[in-house]
């Protein structure tokens, strides 16, 4: 008897969360629980995949600030992920000196440096990109991304060029995969909480205005370029944070982290999960990372596979998985648009509340 009462209480909480915040609420709860309990699975492999999911998920969520919330598509977002990774890696190596070891304080410092490095990169590129929209924005973001990749790739003396930076061994505590996993989970959770606050702030709604109608926004007194630039830098910084976590985990960084292939990742993840939902990119990361880990065990032609998947998704399910789920719920409950919260992130589908 007590158990059914508890069940109702939890069910009530979930529905309440759904009504207050939208589908991302319950999804976040479910994902959060899964992430917390993941290391209980046997073996090290799930945890390794888990770290990747978290890092790439944060990367994708930073991308969605530009795409789902502001309406522009950036095909060069990996440049800031990579800049963050390299920023951390280079400082890391400097701290290591000849010993190959790094202290805890230095480790955290090298992680922190990713933020200004990626932010500056985003600032420089954003300065030009925000003068454009739509197709031109996409082209320039891709082109500048490639330029940054090329610089890192060619600057052999500083970045190690093709070889990248190797031997990034974290301090002893973090060498343990499970420890690093929970560390990553903490940082990613904090970052996501910050992202959530930003999307609920007045700035977040200015972004939505830009997404829907840039011209009108400027007629309402909003300096569109400045707003886009600010968002671009913020998104780039969060991507940089994700990049920072990548290097010490993989023990190395390479120029590929900045290239167009890597830039495709957040785009695919956001498409898979659904750009119209705050939790979409993270859901996409879960699906994508697991799928790619699985498929690459059988074939080396992963780009071909994901290419077809993207094709099918774009043609038939552009709103993503969460959109599919949410529209089922809407149909089920015949829900009227209730006065829950203040508006919608929406792309490729009806307005759904976040």
């Amino acid at each position, binding site marked *: 008897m007590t158990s059914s009462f508890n069940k109702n209480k939890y069910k009530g909480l979930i529905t309440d969360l759904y009504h207050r915040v939208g589908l991302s609420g319950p999804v976040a709860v479910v994902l959060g629980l899964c992430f917390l309990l993941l290391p209980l699975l046997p073996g090290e492999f799930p945890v390794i995949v888990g770290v990747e999911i978290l890092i790439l998920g944060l990367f994708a969520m930073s991308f969605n600030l530009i*795409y789902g919330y502001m*309406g*522009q*598509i950036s*095909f060069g977002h990996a440049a800031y992920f990579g800049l963050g990774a390299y920023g951390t890696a280079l400082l890391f190596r400097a701290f290591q000196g000849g010993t190959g070891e790094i202290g805890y304080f230095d480790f955290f410092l090298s992680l922190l440096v990713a933020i200004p490095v990626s932010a500056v990169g985003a600032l420089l590129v954003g300065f*030009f990109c925000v*003068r*454009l*929209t*739509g*197709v*031109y924005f*996409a*082209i*320039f973001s*891709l*082109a*500048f991304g*490639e*330029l940054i990749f*090329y610089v890192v790739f*060619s600057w052999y003396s500083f970045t190690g060029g093709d070889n990248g930076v190797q031997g990034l061994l974290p301090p002893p505590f973090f060498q343990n995969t499970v420890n690093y996993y929970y560390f990553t989970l903490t940082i990613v959770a904090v970052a996501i909480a910050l992202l959530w606050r930003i999307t609920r702030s007045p700035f977040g709604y200015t972004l939505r205005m830009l997404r829907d109608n840039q011209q009108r926004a400027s007629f309402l007194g909003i300096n569109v370029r400045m707003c886009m630039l600010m968002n671009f830098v913020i998104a780039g910084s969060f991507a940089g944070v994700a990049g920072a976590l990548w290097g010490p985990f993989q023990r190395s960084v390479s120029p590929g982290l900045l290239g*167009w292939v890597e830039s*495709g990742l957040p*785009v695919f993840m956001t*498409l898979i999960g659904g750009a119209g939902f705050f939790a979409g990119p993270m859901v996409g990361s879960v699906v994508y990372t697991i799928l790619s880990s699985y498929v690459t065990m059988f074939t080396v*032609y*992963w*780009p*071909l596979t*994901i*290419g*077809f998947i*993207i*094709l099918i998704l*774009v*043609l038939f399910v*552009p709103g993503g998985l969460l959109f599919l789920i949410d529209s089922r719920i809407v149909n089920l409950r015949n829900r009227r648009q209730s006065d829950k919260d203040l508006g919608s992130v929406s*792309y*490729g589908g009806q307005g759904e509340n976040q």
Partner: protein
Amino acid sequence: MPADFGSVLIQLLSGLSRAMMLFLVSCGLSLIFGVMNILNFAHATLWLVAGYLTYTLFQFFTAIFGDSGLLLIPAIILATGAMFALGWVLERVLIRRMYAREVPEQLLLTFALILIFSDSIKLIWGVENRRIFLPIEPIEMLDSYVNPYIFVIIAVGCGVAAGLWWFLHRTRYGKIVRAAVYNRDMVSALGIRISTIFAGVFALGVGTAALSAGVFLPIMPIGLGIDMDLIIQCFAVVVIGGFGSILGTFVASLIVGVVYAFSILIWPNGALAIIFLILVVVVIWRPWGLFGTEMRY
């Protein structure tokens, strides 16, 4: 520093031939965007497919008919025709569904095509580069040896440019295409089958790119990854020249091609940076390109 005219000449010719190749690829991109408002991200990847296809056909013909450089011609013709057909099919099956969609979704679709086609190249042809060697004697000009094939490329480029211009300005079909750049709805209101025009334009764009791939084979090896370098250059050309303008694409190709060639003399790694500088200046000063129509965002 180029002390002699010879190396300058070589670079100039190299730049011109590269410009021609760029032009042929980019004008397809420009036309497709101008008429249908779709940015075909996979344009250079299709170019690459054409290159591999031409190579294979050339190998096939030389295996049957013996070693003759002239066999490149039927190989190019066949490959171009095949790619034209592929372009037509792509438009009818895939691109057509995206006209009513948002820009990011359109971009995503063509981006997915990059993955599909480039990985298909890997699947069919493997990872090695391909190159064709034509037995041509270098000729002497101004104390330097020049590959006369370069003149073939320049001639083909100018020829196609002229042909395209004639098609767009002197034939009925071409004038309809130009009208569609300005006002799609009006054209369809005139009772003209817009769907055929779109398929034709897309196929034409892909076909022109395919032609350039085949023609350029003797000069430059093709391999995986070249398509991404190329698409960036194409973007630069089309942005500088202006979407939808053949003249603009031609001029911009000349600029980019020659800049590339000469920067090798002065600042080897800086070609890309210089192109970017030009891009940035153009975007700030005349966002719709030197010859383009007012941008539709």
